């Protein structure tokens, strides 16, 4: 072992001992893995730095030039014919193979797509959402419905669902008398219920229409007026829409929420745009559950 390597090892040793002293003095806890790794890293750096330096200094002292000279020389300065370093050559070859793959397959068929990632994420989320909330309890549905309502519905219907004094449908009740009268007078087939286009204008008229409107607007309490029979044919004796075949006149039930969201609605208050595909079936159910709690 010559003096150069010895000196290098001694210097590295001094540096390591110095580091250790500092570590001890600063009371650094070496049982913490991060501290330990940092300390080992410092030792490795010291050893490598002095080792490499010693190797090359040694080489400069003792090496003599050997090998075959290339034909070219520049003002007398020539170069040896060296083999390509193996690591470099294999990397170069590897990159060339990768380039062929990337040109033919990687980029055209397998490129990253932000929309693709979005689609995947939404699909996975929705599947999980439907799974988790398949049999959601009424409390969860109500809470979910409230969150949706506050973001999507409250700007027009008001945070309390009162329709902002007549600017939109008032969810604290099902109808006003004027609304019922307008539908009886003009007919209605915007919601596309399975019952079809049966609600023609003027099926009930005059005093009968007034009585029916009064009856429905008051939440169908008390005795039904005689003309109610005309309505009950489709809407059911209890006015609840015959299990979703015609609009429910008493409650904001799930079919009603679905049909209004899918088709939008124009009434005497104004126009509500449709929200097709905006909500999942569970969310529609949740909205219906929440709307029913608003009704007084």
């Amino acid at each position, binding site marked *: 072992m010559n003096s150069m390597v010895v000196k290098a090892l001694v210097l590295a040793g001094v540096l390591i001992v110095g580091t250790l002293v500092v570590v001890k003095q600063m009371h650094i806890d070496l049982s913490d893995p991060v501290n330990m790794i940092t300390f080992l890293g410092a030792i490795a750096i010291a050893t490598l730095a002095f080792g490499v330096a010693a190797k090359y200094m040694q080489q400069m002292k003792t090496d003599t030039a050997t090998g075959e000279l290339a034909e070219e020389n520049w003002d007398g300065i020539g170069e040896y014919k060296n083999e390509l370093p193996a690591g470099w050559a294999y990397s170069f070859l590897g990159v060339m193979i990768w380039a062929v793959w990337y040109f033919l397959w990687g980029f055209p068929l397998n490129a990253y797509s932000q929309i693709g990632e979005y689609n995947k994420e939404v699909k996975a989320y929705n599947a999980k959402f439907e799974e988790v909330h398949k049999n959601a309890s009424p409390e969860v549905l109500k809470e979910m419905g409230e969150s949706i309502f506050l973001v999507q519905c409250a*700007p*027009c219907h008001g945070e309390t669902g009162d329709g902002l004094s007549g600017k939109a449908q008032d969810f604290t009740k099902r109808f006003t008398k004027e609304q019922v009268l307008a539908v009886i007078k003009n007919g209605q087939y915007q919601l596309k219920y399975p019952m079809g286009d049966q609600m023609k204008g003027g099926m009930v008229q005059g005093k009968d229409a007034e009585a029916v409107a009064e009856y429905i607007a008051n939440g169908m309490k008390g005795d039904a007026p005689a003309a109610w029979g005309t309505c009950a044919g489709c809407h059911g004796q209890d006015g609840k829409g015959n299990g979703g075949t015609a609009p429910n006149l008493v409650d904001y039930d799930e079919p009603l929420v679905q049909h209004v969201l899918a088709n939008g609605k124009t009434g005497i208050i104004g126009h509500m745009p449709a929200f097709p595909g905006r909500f999942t079936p569970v969310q529609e159910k949740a909205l219906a559950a929440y709307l029913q709690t608003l009704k007084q």
Partner: protein
Amino acid sequence: MFHWLEKNPFLFSVGVFIVIAFAGLIEILPNFAEAARPIKGLKPYTVLELAGKEVYKKDNCIACHSQLIRPFKSETDRYGKYSLSGEYAYDRPFLWGSKRTGPDLHRVGNYRTPDWHANHMWDPKSVVPDSIMPAYKHQFKNVADLETAYAEAVTVKNVFNTPYGDEIQPGKEAYEKYLKEKALPEALEIAKKMKNKEVLEMVQKGQIPEIVAMIAYLDRLK
């Protein structure tokens, strides 16, 4: 083997440039060209909508509202489908914005109505109690500048070949004809939905207040 290349510096430079730019040439340019085209079914802005867009710029809505829905679930849940670059093909300039103090407006036409906008612009707190948006009552009095908007339509038709067809022609007469036959009926329809008597009267007299143009523009954002 490649000495000939080293002896032709210009050719060498061109070769180097192609090699370095190659990925960009085949990965960026074709996509860019495709995305810059209008999406199928996209119509250019009507003159009334252009006038509304000017109001949007003038009243600096862009300072608080963006017009770009990113493809993240949280955004599409709230605002609707993510934006596509071809949807902005006729926006000169586009109004993407970068600050959302208020909500995104790129699809506001899908879920708000003219009378809602009218209430909201007159007094935002009347419909959104916690809103910090200021009222824009001057839009109900100021008359929208349809002449400039018409000139803009003529310009983009001539310079960028925006497909307006024959209804947009240069000249005072063509403008007045367009105003009477297209812009005023369009404005009247919106004014009727707004339930504001004064605005309706103004439009019936042939003057279009800024709010009507603004609502035409916002309703068009779908």
